[in-house]
């Protein structure tokens, strides 16, 4: 063990004296700074949008309160239904970015940021207003240069650029034979060189990413630690890959070529092919088809409502109620429509769940996918969180419908006191930590699996003649 430590120290000194190391760190720091700034800008825009929605909701509530306080008279009451009837309450639900949001925009752009909710609105349409995206698609197609891109794509390239010649350099310098003639097991050299490489390249880069995140406002210490842990393991995987790929190669050029091929295969080609495969096995549910099915269901419900309206005798009341009966009837129609919406959506939801399962399984195909997934979860811009938001927003709407039923049953109008007390507000509840940790641990496990497979392959390949000397 002591000899490994000594070789590591020697290799580390050699690496730290290399002329290319400082420019590598500097280049990486510059890219990190740009990526961090880019992520912060994106995050700030989202925060601004969320704040604008909150203010809009506040303004609407304040205007309605003012209408009740200053404008409504018994004669003009009918004109201010929006302020008086609980059925017209309006809410805005938004998914706030987390403090780690600058890490990556992840899947967030593909999901609605917010929902505009009214109790009687069809539950499948509450996100419609926020589906519009006017950003230049050319920017989205080019991909965001964020810190996740830096870690998933560039970091392994730079680690490989420092480790591809780990053994072939010794061979080319004529040192391999001499080294192997020393009383040291060959794996001692490899382990020490790998450790030195990790310490000189991967570790400083991880620290740079962590520092960038801190400068970008990340205050979640456990998140920062998890990010560093994932990146550290990922770096180790790539150093292992460099050892495995270059172990038997004769020249440094061959080693560089093989490392790049490995990077290309695991970071670019394999995930892309995996996605193509998932698209085949579990394609996304057809959104346009779902909309048509829901619209057809709405037409069916409307016909049913009309038929029922003709069958039902007109309600006679001695005294006109505060809330018109038409709104009570509308409530019955909304409930009927909701049952239809749930029935139609069930099929598409199960297709989406199936796809989600396959997407999550794909994490085990390449550590790059697992790292991307982990970083998205840490940044709070992952698909799971976005889906949680959608579920919570829809549940919030159903809760408000229950509240409306109470108002209708009591024939109670909204008052200034109600507005002063504050109407219900949507608050996003983060996933329980156990669930989040479980998902993160799966990512860690996926990278560990990659390391294990690599280790097993290395062992298998190293039997007999681990390193070339000639």
């Amino acid at each position, binding site marked *: 063990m002591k000899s490994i430590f000594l070789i590591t120290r020697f290799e580390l000194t050699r690496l730290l004296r290399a002329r290319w190391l400082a420019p590598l760190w500097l280049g990486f720091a510059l890219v990190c700074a740009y990526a961090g700034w880019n992520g912060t800008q994106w995050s700030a825009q989202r925060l601004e*949008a969320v704040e*604008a*929605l909150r203010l809009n909701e506040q303004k609407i509530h304040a205007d309605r309160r003012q209408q009740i306080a200053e404008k409504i008279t018994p004669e003009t009451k009918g004109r201010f239904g929006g302020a008086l009837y609980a059925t017209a309450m309006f809410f805005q639900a938004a998914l706030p970015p987390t403090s780690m949001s600058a890490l990556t925009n*992840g*899947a967030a*752009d*593909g*999901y609605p940021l917010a929902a505009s909710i009214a109790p009687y609105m069809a539950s499948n349409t509450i996100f419609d207003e*926020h589906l*519009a*995206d*006017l*950003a*230049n*698609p*050319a*920017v*989205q197609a*080019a*991909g965001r*240069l964020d810190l996740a891109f830096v870690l*998933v*794509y560039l970091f392994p*390239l730079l680690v490989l*650029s420092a480790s591809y*010649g780990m053994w072939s350099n010794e061979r080319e310098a004529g040192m391999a034979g001499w080294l192997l003639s020393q009383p040291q097991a060959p794996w001692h050299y490899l382990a020490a060189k790998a450790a030195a490489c990790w310490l000189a390249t991967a570790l400083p880069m991880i620290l740079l990413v962590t520092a960038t995140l801190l400068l970008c406002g990340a205050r979640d210490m456990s998140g920062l630690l998890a990010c560093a842990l994932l990146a550290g393991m990922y770096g180790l995987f790539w150093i292992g890959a460099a050892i495995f790929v270059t172990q038997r190669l004769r020249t*440094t*050029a061959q080693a*560089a*070529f093989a490392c*790049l091929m490995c990077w290309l295969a695991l970071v670019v*080609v394999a995930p*892309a*092919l*995996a*996605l*193509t495969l*998932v*698209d*085949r096995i579990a*394609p*996304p549910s*057809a*959104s*346009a*088809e779902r*909309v*048509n099915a829901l*619209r*057809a269901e709405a*037409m069916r419900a409307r016909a049913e409502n009309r038929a029922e309206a003709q069958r039902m005798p007109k309600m006679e009341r001695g005294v006109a109620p505060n809330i018109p009966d038409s709104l009570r009837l509308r409530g019955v129609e909304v409930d009927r429509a909701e049952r239809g919406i749930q029935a139609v959506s069930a099929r598409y939801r199960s297709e989406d769940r199936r796809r*989600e399962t396959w*997407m*999550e399984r794909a*994490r085990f195909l390449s550590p*790059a*996918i697992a790292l*991307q*997934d982990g970083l*998205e979860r840490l940044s709070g811009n992952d698909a799971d969180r976005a889906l949680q938001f959608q579920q919570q927003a829809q549940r919030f709407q159903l809760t408000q419908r229950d509240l409306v039923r109470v108002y209708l049953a009591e024939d109670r109008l909204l008052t200034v006191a109600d507005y002063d007390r504050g109407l219900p507000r949507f608050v996003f509840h983060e996933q329980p930590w156990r669930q989040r940790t479980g998902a993160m641990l799966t990512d860690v496990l996926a990278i560990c699996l990659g390391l294990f497979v690599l280790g097993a392959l290395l062992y298998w390949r190293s039997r007999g003649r681990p390193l070339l000397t000639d």
Partner: protein
Amino acid sequence: MMATHTLTMLHIVVRQQWRIMARDGRLRWLLLALLLVFAASLTAAAGRANLTLAQQQRDAVSEAEVWAAQGEANPHGAAHFGRYVYKPWPPLAVLDPGLLNHLGSTLRLEGHVQNTGRYKPTDRGFALSRFDGLNPAAVLQTLVPLLIVFAAFTTFSGTRSRALLAQELGAGASSRLLAAGRFAAFAVGLGRLALATGVLCAVWLGARGDWPLFGSLLLMLGACYVYWLVFLALVMAISAHAENAGASLLRSLGLWAVVVVLLPMLAPQLAEQRYPTPGATAFHKAVEREVMEGPDGHDTRDVRLGRLEAETLKAYGVQKIADLPINFDGLVFEHGEQRTTGIYTRHFAQLYDDHAAQARFSLAASVLSPMLALRPLSAALAQSDLPAHRHFLEQAERYRYAMVQALNRDMKLHRKGNGLYTADVNAITAGIQFAPQSLAMRDVAPRIVQPLLILLAWLIAALLLLWRSASQLGGKA
């Protein structure tokens, strides 16, 4: 005599380079892997396009049935209920999807509002979706340059390190001739690769009967070929300069990383910083404000409504709205639609102009990366770029306006009875059909001239650089 001798020498160099390439097992495997990845991505893209087209046809039928199922309905209510139209998948987008994955292909058409495309393929993504970039165009634009790097990085540095270059020069071949011969050999090899990919694409187009698109396909592959030659010349120039094969490989890879990966990613982002566009919320707020308050804030909706009422009463010579021979609500909707359409069109035109300015910025950055010239050119020919999408949106908007105004007009011409006015909305709009046309080549041509010229300029510059580097080879051998 001299020319014949030079040609013979050139022929020998080309043949020798061919032999080296043919015997290079590493290159054979790489080429095979690349063609497999290309074929796999083309098959996947073709499969997805077929599925999308079939799905769109089913959706269009269902949508028409839903619209007809309204039966007797209030025309303005029907305008709010709206219709959906579907953007046809351009056949060449199989080869280059351009921006299609980031543009919704479903458009909701409704009264008062102009929407943008919905349901993008990138919607509802997961971590794995981030790796969605391997389409046939990406293989040609990103991976083939990498293949060029691996094939050509030892062109001079490898032979020099083996002291062969000195022998070749000593045998009577000039350094420029060596460079020209090797460049020609690689160029022929790349030409064959372009031909192979062209045949694969032609099979797809031919199977669909899209013969008129062969011209566009040829242009796309031609531009791609020029781009490859640029890369080849640059890598060979690096190889001529580098002291050994390792340095040549690292520098060539650095060039690939910067020119093919980083700059094409950075340029659109910097363009967005330079020409910022409003977010969706801000955009719709601005439109809404103008609709409610007028362009200068002094012509509010209430004022406009009062003016319309007075003018209408005067035109029909009556005192009260109830005495009008038309449905005043319908008239209000008709006027309102005309006004909001004008406002939306102006705001969207501004947005698209900003996007066009961003595209110009990115194209200007192509002086640093030829890929920034190739990408818009290829997407323009495939009709998968923003102008092609805008062309579709404009056609859809004309259809939307005609449909909504037909509904409003019908309402205007029928006075209110006791209840809500209803009519067979399907019959009212039956005569208005939506049949989007793709852009003609004459509309696309002006957009490809500039990128094509930039690519050619790159080729000339790269060849000059290779020429200059080759002339210094003698001293380094």
